């Protein structure tokens, strides 16, 4: 127990002293995870909306595949993206391997199916009168879709939060595609694995605490967003009055 308390004490000292390495690793984790989540949201949510509202052949099979991909192991994604980005891969000329860009691509592949599957579920659970009402009021198809998105925003934001949580906490993709290069691709999860393996338990613990705090702060922001009276179509002035 003494070992744990000592390590915890050292970890807090590192955090309070705003250790430069610690801050660098934390900031890298945040921006890489936010970038990949943003990309996954931009691709996943519109696709999910279309899949949810349209009827087409193979829809059920697609949903089964999406749900399966939610449980995709991070090392498998790492391996798959590696095969594209490595020197002999089709995207090898881009020289993205062992850069933050490779990590973003890998995390994007990891988060997209998760965000899509959860967003599809949220939209499918929406009241079917939303789109019809919008159409009867003269909405275009895109305006009608935006209306549905606005009404189920809590579910969509929950999907994005889950996607962020998945990429922020993953280690396999970051390790395989980023390579854990100091001051370049080392993020919180790869650093924890690395520092633990070389006996720097206090630093690893400090990183673990920061990982939890960052995840907590970002979830708080997302929750606040879902509570806003956000309406993609109505004029802002009408909300303020």
């Amino acid at each position, binding site marked *: 127990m003494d070992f744990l308390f000592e390590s915890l004490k050292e970890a807090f000292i590192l955090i309070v002293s705003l250790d430069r390495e610690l801050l660098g690793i934390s900031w890298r984790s945040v921006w890489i995870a936010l970038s990949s989540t943003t990309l996954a949201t931009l691709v996943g949510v519109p696709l999910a909306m279309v899949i949810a509202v349209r009827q087409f052949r193979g829809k059920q099979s697609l949903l089964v595949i999406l749900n399966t991909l939610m449980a995709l192991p991070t090392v498998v994604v790492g391996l798959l993206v590696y095969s594209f980005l490595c020197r002999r891969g089709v995207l090898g000329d881009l020289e993205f391997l062992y850069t933050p860009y490779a990590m973003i691509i890998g995390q994007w592949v990891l988060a997209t199916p998760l965000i899509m599957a959860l967003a599809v579920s949220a939209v499918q659970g929406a009241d079917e009168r*939303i789109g*019809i009402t919008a159409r*009867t*009021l003269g*909405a275009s198809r895109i305006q009608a879709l935006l209306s549905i998105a606005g*009404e189920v925003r809590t579910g969509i934001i929950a999907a994005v939060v889950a996607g962020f949580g998945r990429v922020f906490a993953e280690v396999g993709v970051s390790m395989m595609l980023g390579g854990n290069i100091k001051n370049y691709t080392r993020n919180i999860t790869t650093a924890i694995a690395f520092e633990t393996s070389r006996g720097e338990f206090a630093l690893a613990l400090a990183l673990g605490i920061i990982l939890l705090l960052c995840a907590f702060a970002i979830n708080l922001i997302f929750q606040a967003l879902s509570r806003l009276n956000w309406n993609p179509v*109505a*004029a802002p002035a009408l909300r303020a009055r």
Partner: protein
Amino acid sequence: MKVYECNNVKKYYGEILALDIASLSFDKGGFYIIYGPNAAGKTTLLNLLAFLDRPDAGTIAFQGTPGSKNIHRSITDVTLVMQTPYLFKGTVLQNVCRGLAFRGMKKDRMLKRAQPVMEKLGLWELYRRDVSALSGGERRKVAVVRSLVLDTDILLLDEPTAHLDSIHVTVIEQIISEAARKAGKTVIMTTHDIHQAHRLVDDVIYLAGGGVTHTPLWNNFKAVIRAANGVKKAELAGGLEVYVVAEREGDGSIAIHPKDIILSYEPIHSSALNCLKGRITGVNDVNSLVDVVVDAGAIFHSFITHASSRKMNLVMGQEIFLTFKASAVEVF
């Protein structure tokens, strides 16, 4: 000018024929009430007229153009208030202005358009209220006003007063009647309240079993048609039997024009096969006639003149006989 011309329109849900209209048209500026019992096809018809759905067969011409063409333009010319309207999350004002926002209207113009209508209909004091805090009647009112502020050429309303108390019914009827009086506006409304239909317009469109019928659906009952001793009988819920003239057998509906029912204090011995005994449960004025409501195992309406009413000296609870011919019973 015709705004809608429906020809041989059919709409199926699976194998069920929900709508089968040979010919029906609506003139520009008219106020139309479509009356029909549940599952008569009223909502299906309005969905087709609002371009939310397409017929499986036949054509619906909109202002002379087939409905499938220029569909987006058509959608902005027509608005529909659904039977159970959906209000978007947010305030009353946001909901009322929603259709205007879809049209890209600037916020100051939106308010200029919405405020007078809301004030007139007593909704302005609720403009900041979250719609989740509204009563059923207020929600319906918001939905009607939301469509009215769009000032579209055509207003479709699907049972806008269903399940409302009499105060809200009166208010919404006034709103709709006023909208219908506006020059050039075509209002098409459905109802399953026959009194309301006749209160609002003189000529009601009757819809039964998915088709337009020319028999007023006052005495409209679900029935099972059976052959018995060379004649056909319709068995109503509760076991009451009525002689009918019909080719078909099985489940169906019947309707009897109230003007075809003769009232008498003694059984009439005549060629009419149907003579039912009941008690008077209501006497109401309907336009220039008197609607006598009789419970004879089912509730029947019979129209008589004011002169006949005075002569018979009708009293509530009094025993009375209803007589009508089997051929006066319309079978659907």
